């Protein structure tokens, strides 16, 4: 006979269970090791607290323009504008961009002077996966403001959606 009876190839209940166990163990060892995104929102919050240097973190004064959904996280356009008169007495000293779930939360820091005229930047950043972006602004008087924006990423900068 060319066609052999199917019964001979059937796995017993015990074999199925053993195979399932092996598969689970393999996943546990190799599959669940973290790939690229190592940072956590906790790390970003710690960074934010470090920037504040004990000063109270206040919400507002920053306007972020970031797409709600992006196809390509490897270059996502972000714009922020900090509300400030930008005079010698009162200006924005520096602005930090933090990405909560990137490999390293620090994205970039921008320093301004009264010569800048406006504390407004447009640039392109990498977003590894869907997450919240934090923009924190240090003012010349030492106060610190922050704002958040959410961005969903269809295809992240890390290569895994």
């Amino acid at each position, binding site marked *: 006979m060319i066609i052999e009876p199917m019964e001979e190839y059937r796995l017993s209940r015990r074999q199925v269970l053993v195979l399932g166990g092996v598969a689970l163990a393999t996943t546990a060892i190799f599959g669940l090791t973290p790939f*690229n995104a190592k940072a956590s929102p906790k790390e970003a919050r710690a960074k934010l607290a470090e920037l504040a240097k004990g000063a109270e973190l206040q919400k507002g004064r920053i306007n972020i323009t970031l797409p709600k959904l992006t196809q390509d996280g*490897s*270059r*996502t356009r972000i714009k922020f504008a900090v509300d400030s008169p*930008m005079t010698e007495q009162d200006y924005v000293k520096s602005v930090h*961009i933090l*990405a909560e779930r*990137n*490999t*390293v939360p*620090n*994205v*970039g*820091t*921008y*320093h*301004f*002077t*009264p*010569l*800048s*005229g*406006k504390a*407004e*930047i*447009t*640039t*392109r*950043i*990498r*977003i590894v996966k869907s997450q919240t972006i934090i923009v924190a602004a240090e003012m010349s008087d030492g106060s610190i403001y922050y704002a958040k924006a959410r961005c969903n990423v269809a295809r992240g*900068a890390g290569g895994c959606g």
Partner: protein
Amino acid sequence: MMKPNAPRIRMPSTAKIGDIIQIKTKIRHPMETGWRKGGDGQTVPRDRITRFTCTFEGKEVVSADYDSGIASDPYLMFHAKVTGTGVYTFKWEADGEKIMTTSVPLTITNA
């Protein structure tokens, strides 16, 4: 055709004192994080621009410290308050002490 590594600056060539001008800058750079593996399975060595500075006649206008989150071919748009005729100098500092600079003059139309 522009040179592959020449930075591109777009800003007005004339302005009035007190104006706030918009400056757009772009430079070609891979911004390798040093974490990625290439096609041959080897880790691609880190090569990043770490600092950008824009100065007007020696005085700082805007500067930036770049970390891993800045996309390749860094694009930056910012503003500057016009105080007089002079030259804006743009400087990018990359890993391996590579420095790229360019400068653009600005003239004043009202005295």
